[in-house]
């Protein structure tokens, strides 16, 4: 039970990897990579969670009144989410470019073209 959140994160990563490796469409592969990315968010936030803790924001809770969850992993995840989206955009741009130049987005067909 205590391992479940971590196992969920691990499962998301592995299922994303499986989809990535068996993908027949590069756009689908980018989506699978997004699932892999989301596993890191789940893992980081699960590590920082604290039972009975509240959000690390002290605008309406006086400091020290309640335990708070770990803000450091939240800050890591926060930038990760936004930067990950722009990297996804770059990958999709490359896929669009591949489709323009080769007329296909199937990795297997692309391999045949190159060979």
């Amino acid at each position: 039970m205590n391992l479940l959140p971590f196992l969920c994160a691990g499962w998301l990563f592995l299922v994303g990897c499986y989809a990535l490796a068996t993908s027949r469409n590069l756009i689908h592969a980018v989506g699978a990579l997004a699932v892999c990315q989301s596993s890191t968010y789940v893992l980081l936030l699960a590590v920082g969670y604290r039972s009975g803790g509240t959000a690390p924001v002290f605008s309406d809770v006086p400091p020290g009144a309640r335990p708070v969850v770990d803000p450091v992993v939240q800050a890591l995840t926060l930038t990760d989410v936004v930067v990950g989206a722009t990297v996804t955009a770059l990958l999709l741009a490359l896929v669009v470019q591949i489709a323009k130049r080769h007329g296909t987005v199937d990795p297997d067909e692309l391999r045949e073209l190159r060979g």
Partner: protein
Amino acid sequence: MTELPVLLGLLLATTAGTAAALTRDPVHQALVLSVLGLALALLFTLLQAPDVALSQLAVGTVLTPLMVLLSVRKVRRRPREDSPADGRGGKR
């Protein structure tokens, strides 16, 4: 059990993630990805991370699926020319 909402959110996000990875058609996948974004935002709220939930909401439910859909539209509109006979010299 005080952690029950967290566990439910976790299972929801895991299910949505699995569905998103195993959906083969990119258009359907984009929709499932936005469901995943929503599930993750919910999970992050339950994990007491409102900052992350907010950015996940904007990125996961809007930005990423929209870019995927636009890419699909661009890729599909181009007619599939199945004549790779001509040399691919001027590649750039």
